[in-house]
């Protein structure tokens, strides 16, 4: 069995841990540059305001006191995510972090309390320890666990175990809402009389392959209850971009850690560019080897100076944090990088007139600048558009909360 644990309205829930005035309020967290709504509280959803609604259209309703907004505080969210993952690692045989607020878990066998009870305890522990409410779903495959998780979130106790025969559930779920299918296949699916997840599961392999190739066939196989997502390419789902790998042999050197992370960052950045997306930051992690699987994970949250898809810019931000993952004399099983704060190139960035054009990244000019900087010191030559001195103005985050768990000078104050 595989479990999927995810934080409900994760960014909003993180804000609420440190700002209790937001509890019970219609509140949304905004994308970079305070562009549009990327995380909404239940109260906010109930007003019928869609994900992605531009902030400027809602400003009047904020002024009147009806709605609350926060800028995205990815450092805080990254740290809260790290805490949740570490709890999951203590409680599960293994954990695969899928995005900043989602992780697949492999529950321990025969713990004697049953999966639903196990899920409830897990959920209660995360809520008490970190303050984030989660949904938990269990099923034989990741694709089914995703569906179970969605149902779990609507249960009073937040947990759902997929029944042995999920036919009824699949029959009520539109096929294009299945994880990894996506709207772009809707028309082709309809043409083949595939409307629901059940139709997709029961269609013939040939039909499925003709509609969506081997990727869709894998999804259908998972709907049939056969795990098929080992080394799965998560490309179909652009709300998360990550890359990780277990080492063939445990790695014991800082070089090994930093080289693998650099390579995974480059690979993940390629994925980003393929989707024309930018990332605001990432969590990098290194998992310590433990025979029999699992093992503690050391995680650092890295913010990029601005949302980017440039490998160089990412590596420059990541490099200083890598040594913190490394304990001498320790054997590592796995490293990985999970990007967060993803946005489409050009979306909500119109304001940022001074951002270097994307094409410059690999241009001869940039290369020359890199070479000069490498020789005479970082930042000796930079484009004037990068700004001189304090660059905090670059990203518009007018409603930024305190980075209460990662900055000494921004701690919560208590009177």
């Amino acid at each position, binding site marked *: 069995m595989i479990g999927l644990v995810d934080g409900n309205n994760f960014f909003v829930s993180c804000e609420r841990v440190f700002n209790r005035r937001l509890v019970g309020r219609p509140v949304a967290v905004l994308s970079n540059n305070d562009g549009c709504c990327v995380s909404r509280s239940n109260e906010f959803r109930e007003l019928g305001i869609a994900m992605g609604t531009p902030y400027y259209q809602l400003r009047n309703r904020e002024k009147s006191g009806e709605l609350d907004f926060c800028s995205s505080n990815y450092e805080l969210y990254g740290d809260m995510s790290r805490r949740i993952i570490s709890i999951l690692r203590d409680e599960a045989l293994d954990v695969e972090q899928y995005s900043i607020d989602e992780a697949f878990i492999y529950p321990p066998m025969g713990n004697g309390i049953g999966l639903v009870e196990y899920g409830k305890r897990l959920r209660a522990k995360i809520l008490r320890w970190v303050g984030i409410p989660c949904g938990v779903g269990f099923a034989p495959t990741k694709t089914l666990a995703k569906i179970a998780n969605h149902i779990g979130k609507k249960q009073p106790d937040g947990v759902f175990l997929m029944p042995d025969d999920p036919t009824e559930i699949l029959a009520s779920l539109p096929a294009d809402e299945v994880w990894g299918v996506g709207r772009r296949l809707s028309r082709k699916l309809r043409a083949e009389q595939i409307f629901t997840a059940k139709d997709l599961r029961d269609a013939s392999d040939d039909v499925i392959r003709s509609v969506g190739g081997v990727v869709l066939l894998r999804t259908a196989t998972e709907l049939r209850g056969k795990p098929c997502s080992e080394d799965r390419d998560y490309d179909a789902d652009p709300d998360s971009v990550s890359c990780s790998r277990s080492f063939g042999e445990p790695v014991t050197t800082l070089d090994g850690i930093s080289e693998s992370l650099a390579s995974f960052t480059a690979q993940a950045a390629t994925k980003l560019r393929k989707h024309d997306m930018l990332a605001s930051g990432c969590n990098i992690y290194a998992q310590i080897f433990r025979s029999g699987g699992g093992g503690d994970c050391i995680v650092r949250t890295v913010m990029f100076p601005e949302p980017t898809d440039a490998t160089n810019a990412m590596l420059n931000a990541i490099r200083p944090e890598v040594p913190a993952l490394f304990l001498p004399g320790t054997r590592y099983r796995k490293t990985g990088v999970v990007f967060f704060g993803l946005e489409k190139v050009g979306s909500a960035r119109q304001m940022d007139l001074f951002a270097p054009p994307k094409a410059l990244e690999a241009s001869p000019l940039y290369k020359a600048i890199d070479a000069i900087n490498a020789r005479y010191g970082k930042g000796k030559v930079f484009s004037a558009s990068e700004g001189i001195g304090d660059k905090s103005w670059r990203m518009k985050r007018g409603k930024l909360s305190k980075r209460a768990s990662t900055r000494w000078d921004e*701690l919560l104050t208590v009177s």
Partner: protein
Amino acid sequence: MSKNAKVSGSVVAGFPSPAEQYQETPLDLNALLVKRPAATFFVRVKGESMIGEGIHDGDLLVVDRSLRPASGDVIIACVDGDFTVKTYRRDKDGVRLEPANPDFPVMYMRRGQQLDYFGKVTACIHRF
């Protein structure tokens, strides 16, 4: 025999190095003060309401969210949207938050009002 004679520090056979017994890792304040990193947050004290407990303005408190509050514990809670550090009391007179300074009032929980508990204070770090 030679193959499994000795495995990194843990002795199967042969003579241990006399120094091995005395090897110590440096003392780590984090390990001492933070038992559960996933549940531990630091907060900054503002004001003198808990001076009687040795908690001063500007001090750093170590807060463990995983611990349930018992009467008499120093806790962090949220009252009317503001976070506060007080002593938690629960007895026949009801639930209340007590300051450790006579200049500040005791805060009583009204009937049906739930305490918005954040975490238990496990240490206070005061710098001179």
